[in-house]
């Protein structure tokens, strides 16, 4: 069969309902839909302030068919630690506590709480769906915004001047049992990773690239394609790190040039050819670093 297998690799049934308030083409509800397929109904979601706070719907509605606990921006992992303790006290060890939060609540505002929970190796699953800026409040830059990108706080004349924080390496440095990257373009890979994480104990971290059509200035129907291009151009490689030591790629990366990925997005439209070359050089350097880190991995290209 020449079509990639997908139908029999993705579980039936959705715990995300229609009518949620995500923008058309938003990847976050797609990511949530896929993650919940892997996690099942025995899940409690802890949700610090992020786009999904809105997507989940206004009280008394909820777009998630599992309990959701909305929390303040900086407190996701702390609240999750408390819920975990309460569940454990009640003997509910098999309930998954999922922290679902954006890049602002992870890279910037929630970082100390996350680091603390990871240091204590709290038994929680933390998913950062990263749309690379504070999209919900009007596209302000975060420390996940890539170098050169336009946001409302980094206008095209003065675009983002710092590199995106390497959050996977930060989390891996906590030597947690599992840290991985994933994205909506590869649903089977995403579900495999969430399923694997669900079966483990301790702090598990998934960094999930989540394209945002209004913030990235792309078409509503382009998010999945852009996520695919991000992976294949090695902007956002697909990785797993176990115990902070064993790094491996979870698929092959074509190594396509980054330029087509950038040019499809209005937030990079102002970039000059030199700036694109600079981004390509940064990607290549990061890739070399990853190739060294994954040196024991069978998928490393020669």
């Amino acid at each position, binding site marked *: 069969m020449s079509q990639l297998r*997908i139908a029999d690799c993705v579980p039936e049934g959705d715990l995300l309902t*229609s009518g*949620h308030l995500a923008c*058309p*083409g938003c990847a976050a509800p*797609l990511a949530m839909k896929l993650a919940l397929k892997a996690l099942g109904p025995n899940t409690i979601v802890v949700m610090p302030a992020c786009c999904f706070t809105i997507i989940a719907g206004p009280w008394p509605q*909820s777009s998630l068919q599992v309990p959701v606990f909305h929390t303040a921006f900086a407190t996701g992992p702390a609240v999750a630690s408390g819920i975990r303790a309460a569940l454990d006290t009640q003997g509910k060890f098999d309930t998954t506590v999922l922290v679902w939060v954006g890049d602002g609540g992870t890279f910037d505002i929630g970082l100390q709480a996350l680091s603390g929970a990871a240091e204590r190796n709290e038994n929680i699953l933390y998913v950062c769906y990263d749309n690379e800026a504070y999209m919900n409040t009007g596209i302000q830059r975060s420390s996940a915004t890539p170098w050169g990108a336009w946001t409302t706080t980094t206008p095209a004349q003065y675009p983002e001047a710092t590199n995106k924080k390497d959050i996977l390496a930060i989390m891996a440095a906590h030597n947690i049992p599992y840290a991985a990257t994933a994205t909506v373009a590869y*649903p089977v890979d995403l579900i495999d990773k969430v399923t694997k994480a669900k079966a483990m104990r301790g702090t598990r971290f998934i960094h999930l690239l989540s394209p945002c059509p209004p913030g990235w200035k792309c078409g*509503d*129907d382009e998010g999945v394609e852009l996520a695919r291009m991000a992976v294949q151009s090695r902007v956002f490689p697909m990785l797993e790190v176990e115990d902070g030591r064993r790094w491996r790629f979870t698929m092959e990366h074509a190594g396509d040039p980054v330029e087509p990925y950038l040019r499809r997005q209005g937030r990079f439209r102002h970039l000059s050819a030199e700036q694109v070359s600079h981004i390509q050089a940064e990607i290549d350097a990061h890739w070399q670093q990853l190739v060294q880190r994954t040196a024991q991995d069978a998928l490393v290209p020669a």
Partner: protein
Amino acid sequence: MPETITTTDGARAIPEVAMSTTSTLVTRTGSWKYTRPAYHDRVAPCNAGCPVGIDIEGYLNLLREGRVDEARDLLLAENPLPAVTGRVCHHPCENTCNRRTFDGAVAIHAVERAMGDLARQRPAPVLKGKRRTERVAVVGSGPAGLACAYHLARFGYGVTIYESAQEAGGMLRLGIPEYRLPREALDGDIARVVAHGVEIKCGVRIGEHVTWKELTELFSAVCIATGAHTSRALGVPGEQLPGVQPGLVFLRDVNSGKRPDLGRHVVVVGGGNTAMDCARSAMRLGAKVTVAYRRTREQMPAIKEEVDDAMREGAEFVFLANPVEFQEANGRVCALVAERMALGEPDASGRRRPVPTGEHFTIEADTVLTAIGESSALEGFFGDVEGSDSGLQVDALGGTNRDMLYAGGDVTDLARTVADALGAGKRAAIGIDRHLRRHHGDTAELNALRFADGNLSAVRWMGRDPIRRVNPVNAVVGVDDLNFAQYQRVPRHADPHLDSDRARGGFDEVNAGLSTAEAMDEAKRCLNCGVCTQCDVCLIFCPDAAITRAADGSYTIALDYCKGCGLCAAECPRGAITMTQDRP
């Protein structure tokens, strides 16, 4: 005691923390959209590009699902001679295949051939439907005649084919050498046509043994499919010399079992399939062969594989060579004088025109075979039927200017290939059926029978399409409508060939074909352009969970919730979802 409040779904106790009591299904986010998706099955380019009008995508899809018998029946419903076309068709379907730029076109010819060979071992399908009282005569048993007779028989008519040769098959038997089309493949396909109740009377020449007048009195309609059997003359001095002969005459001799002595060096003039057949047959008789063609390789009208094979087997090609004279020695041709040509501006056929350079050169020849095209011998046969030197004039359904006379194949002025002849025979059959039933449909009705702007479908004409189509749109799906990210590269199966030395040594079939298992594998390479295969990609990628699967496997879009983002259409591997502008 907790206080109570009244919400949209009734009075409830206020919990200690604010808790949701209902889902977001109350929010009809469908009102946000300005475009909406819809499932529309469209036409795969192979179907539109097939001159026969075969539902190629349809039978490949059935094969993918392992429904081999249904696939065979669908193929046979449109094409009476799959074992033949699987071998000798120039397969324009593969030239239009959307897979060709990804990892190579699906080897449709190889699958068709395997299906044709499988069909030979199975009984003909039982014909259902009303028998009709009218009888139809078909003159000529080549591909056009066989196709016309076959489809008429399936429509319920009694059909008699008159063939002037001793065996049925026309150019398939007399023109195409056995190393390309083994006689058991041809005989098997013809036997199935006969099994449909078609009577074939061989050795009967109309105008000689039976008059045209008698024919038109005995039958309710007549289809003329006599072919084009006259080699066109070069019109240069020395063409009448012994040793210069029309390629078609040579092929007819070889294909009826004769092994003429051609001498040591044979020159073939021409660049079409007849020229390639002459060259390769002559090599099999031990001659050294030079092909002289007035343009270059790129402009050769022959099937590319035939040129490749001729080269592989050792034929020498002299391009840009236009014959101007044949020289004589001892009362026989001894050489061809040719003028060196250069390529000029494109002509009416779109190919670059050869222009003379004034430079002449000589090629030695013991025998010259001319193959620069064929014309049909129309002398006196048809009386007042309109036609020109290039053939009879026919309408979209094979009708001539005479009410009951239809025509198809090389005798008409349309493209001269086996596939075009089969397609023309089918059109004439539908034309005759409409004529005899006094059914006068309009152009729109006729166009609905076409695969996009391709040939007519007999299955659609009979109203028996076994494929369930979702809101079909009769438009071709282009390569840009597909999402190749959902496919993996699977190399095309190459045809196994006899090695050149063995091939040259006799008339054994050169292309050994794929095994049935390999052909079934190849069928699975089909992308199913434009036709939903219920692969779940749309269902999985919908961020609004607005797509659900019905009991029969098809999908429903909840337009109350769909925001019109278009991800389903963008991610659909095969262009089976179309986004349309929402009305305000």
